[in-house]
């Protein structure tokens, strides 16, 4: 981001009419480029970026919280569709948000390229020559030295180790030293801005080639395999991911364990798993055991597996009148996050029925509420999230579950319209603890066997994540350098005093003394340079200086932050 330079007045004579249009076009392009890469434009774009992101702080976003967006639509039926039209609920992927940051980054590139070039040139350039009148600098001191100018220069060289330094000769044996320090400031500045670019590219690559999927797995040794989109309950692919080429791996969830404090607050969650990566699957090798905890995902081969949710799955065994048995445990949905009171629907087809009409009369669903620690009594509620006294309040429905209607239905409930039409009828309602069973009018018994636990895992794949981290660290280093390193200059001019002249400082006669002048200029932030200059002065002019002054600091136009820019662009 560079400072706008007023374009010099066009002094060229009127061009021939035939060549004028492309010259105009060129001028337009040049002015647009200059305008776009000017610091003011960059600033405006920065503020636009902040402003554009602002709705994201107030309004729910589809990415992180789709449910909240639904709720917002319900609460604001007229406003929400309007906001949706301009993409407010997908704010960070809207064209207008992208336009702002892309323009900003173009502006950034337009500034970085010339400044990097300048910096490279600057590495080879000599330091700025000593100003003629050092006493006009903000920091200045003068004194005498009994040694010759050459010795003074050699001494200065030793003292200014680490500074970029040039010694020059002026007529009449005068020697000067010009020194600079703090070039790292601009280096840090460039590193910072380049890292920003790298960061953006890394994020983009992740959005293109990464994916995220959620899946619920029973914590009873059940297996999940990363074979395709259909393995997942929800799948969020990157723009270049079609789900056909996922890295194969399989994962068995053996156990889930949650610890709670006496007041029911959770203390820890932990899942014991075994996983096989592509090589292990190919070789038929034994899977690797691992644990997944909150804040501690499973990482292997660029895949990350997170434990993001858990819940209970009551297991029921249905014994049909003909003696056939079916056992099933499917996840129920926690409706109270602190007591884990859950609701759900475990659905059964009568085995051996081939006739659709009969089947639609005999399907069973066990719905209701499940409490891991039941309060007891007629109405089941839960008092504690851990599995200490489980009880289920079961409503048993029989009839047509509507699974063949072609309409999707929730796995956590039954189709209420079927109940309303009388095609699905409640045939029993009882509270059961594990081991208890109920018997329906047709002799079917339903036993509440036990309770299983399920975990919701999230599989994340982002090939650019490490690159993003490296860019972020480089960014941090860059910004720290560019805000802490101070650019400053220091000059020494040693003029030989006439041979045999008397040095007034100590009354000795010196053969080849020098009168020494020091000057200092802080190019960025004045604060603090005064002390450093004083130290240099006491080291280089150990005798009492004949004169010394510091002009009060003023706001140096050069004093700046990350956008510190002395040059033009």
């Amino acid at each position, binding site marked *: *981001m560079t*400072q*706008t330079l007023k374009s010099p007045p066009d002094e060229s004579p009127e061009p021939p009419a035939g060549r004028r249009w492309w010259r105009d076009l060129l001028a337009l392009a040049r002015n647009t480029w200059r305008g776009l890469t000017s*610091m*003011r434009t*960059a*600033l405006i774009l*920065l*503020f636009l*970026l*902040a402003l554009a*992101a602002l709705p*994201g*702080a107030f309004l729910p*976003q589809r*990415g*992180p*919280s789709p449910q*909240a967006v639904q709720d917002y639509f319900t609460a604001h039926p007229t406003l929400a569709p309007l906001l949706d039209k301009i993409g407010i609920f997908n*704010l960070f992927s809207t064209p207008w948000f992208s336009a702002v940051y892309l323009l900003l980054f173009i502006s950034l590139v337009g500034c970085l390229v010339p400044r990097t070039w300048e910096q490279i040139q600057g590495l080879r350039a000599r330091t700025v020559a000593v100003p003629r009148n050092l006493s006009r600098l903000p920091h200045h001191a003068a004194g005498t030295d009994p040694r010759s100018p050459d010795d003074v220069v050699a001494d200065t060289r030793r003292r200014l180790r680490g500074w970029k330094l040039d010694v020059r000769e002026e007529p009449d044996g005068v020697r000067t030293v010009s020194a600079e320090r703090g070039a790292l400031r601009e280096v840090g500045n460039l590193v910072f801005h380049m890292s920003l670019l790298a960061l953006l590219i890394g*994020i983009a690559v992740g959005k293109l080639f990464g994916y*995220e999927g959620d899946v619920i797995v029973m914590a009873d040794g059940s297996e999940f395999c990363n074979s395709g989109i259909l393995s997942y309950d929800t799948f969020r692919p990157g723009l270049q991911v079609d789900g056909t080429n996922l890295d194969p791996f399989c994962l068995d969830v053996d156990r889930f364990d949650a610890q709670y*404090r006496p007041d029911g*607050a*959770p*203390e*820890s*969650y932990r899942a014991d798993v075994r996983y096989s990566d592509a090589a292990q699957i190919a070789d038929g090798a034994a899977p690797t055991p691992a644990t997944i905890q*909150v*804040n501690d995902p499973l990482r292997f081969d660029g895949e*990350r597996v*997170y434990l*993001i949710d858990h819940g209970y799955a009551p297991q029921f065994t249905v014994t049909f009148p003909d003696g056939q048995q079916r056992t099933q445990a499917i996840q129920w949905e926690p409706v109270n996050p602190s007591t884990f009171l859950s609701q759900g629907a475990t659905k059964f087809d009568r085995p051996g029925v081939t006739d659709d009409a009969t089947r639609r009369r005999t399907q069973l669903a066990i719905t209701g509420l499940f409490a891991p620690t039941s309060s007891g009594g007629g109405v089941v509620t839960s008092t504690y999230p851990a599995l200490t006294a489980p009880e289920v309040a079961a409503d048993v429905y029989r009839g047509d579950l509507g699974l063949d209607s072609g309409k999707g239905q929730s796995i956590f409930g039954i189709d209420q319209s079927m109940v309303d039409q009388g095609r699905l009828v409640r045939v029993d309602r009882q509270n059961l603890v594990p081991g208890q069973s109920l018997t329906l009018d047709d002799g079917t018994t339903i036993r509440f066997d036990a309770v299983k636990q399920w975990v919701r895992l999230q599989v*994340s794949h*982002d090939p650019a*994540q490490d690159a*993003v*981290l490296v860019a*972020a*660290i480089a*960014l*941090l280093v860059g*910004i720290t350098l560019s*805000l*802490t390193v101070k650019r400053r200059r220091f000059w020494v001019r040693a003029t030989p005093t006439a041979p045999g002249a008397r040095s007034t400082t100590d009354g000795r006669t010196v053969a080849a003394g020098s009168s020494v002048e020091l000057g200092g200029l802080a190019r960025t*932030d004045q*604060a603090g340079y*005064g002390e450093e200059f*004083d130290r240099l002065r006491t080291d280089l002019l150990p005798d009492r200086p004949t004169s010394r002054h*510091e002009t*009060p600091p*003023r*706001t140096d*136009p*050069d*004093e700046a*932050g*990350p*956008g*510190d820019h002395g040059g033009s662009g």
Partner: protein
Amino acid sequence: MNVDAPLGDFGDVLFYSALAVYILAMLLHAVEHGMLRRVASAEAVPAAVPAAVGAGGGDEPGTTTVVPDDPAAGDDAAGDDPAPAGPRTRDGRPPRPASERFGRMGVSLTVLGLGLHIAMLVVRGVAADRPPWGNMYEFVAAVTLVGVLAWLVVLFRRPELRRLGVFVLLPVIVLMMLGGTVLYTQTAPVVPALHSYWLAIHVTAAVISSGILLFAGVASVLYLLRSVHDSNGRMAWTAKLPGAAVLDRVAYRATAVAFPIWTFAVIAGAIWAEAAWGRYWGWDPKETTAFIAWVVYAGYLHARSTAGWRGRKAAAVNVVGFAVMSFNLFFVNLVVTGLHSYAGVG
């Protein structure tokens, strides 16, 4: 993880003690400020009353440089190097104006308050057996602590800024009052998602940067007031503030220190989010607002070096930045539901 409730309650006692001491300190600074007006309006400050003393070279640490009560002279003295030594009394020390004595008492009390404040957070941390910034009450307590600490560091390096005391302590006190009432939470453990050493790293960085930015925000507000006064003479009381250039400079320096720390806080948060939530960035409301604040502060640092933006416009940007930070703390935690909803309020 056991909670020591009585110890936690003792922490609350320390919190209120610190608050009370700060209020007293602010009152003393206010008295100092009020007396400055009298001195200034009395015009007849004899030249014999030493206006300013540059202590020695002005560089030895620990030496306090006295600043003239005359606001006009204050501008000149407020630079890097204190004004040259003025006349002294026979024992070599200048008599202290009454306003200065009040100001010094204010500073002493601020230091005392800081001690109580630190003790409060230590006690809280020991009582809860974790870093003491797991809910909004503790977070506000920690941020204000850093704010006061930042102020005292600035004061140590630039004693002539003591007149700012009342204005720095005011937001600290307001925040602590909010923290002690609306946001108050008993000592308690935190949810499993917060059981991570990143709590210490990410939140500590956020606390430190927020505290320093609090001071920077105050300095920029005062700069704006002072520079308005400089151009149209209104708001005469601001004439007693340090000069506009000095305020602008301390605001910038504080922001320049805080910005990399804030950047680190955001990056550390992203690293933690990657481990806890499965992605390093997900535009959670807190993340979005942290990003906005970062962009605004980046804008401030750029604005300060852009022709046409220096001065008031840049300072206004800094104030907006601080407003975004406050919004992030209060609105996003209390009103918006997001992944960062650990406020523990309610």
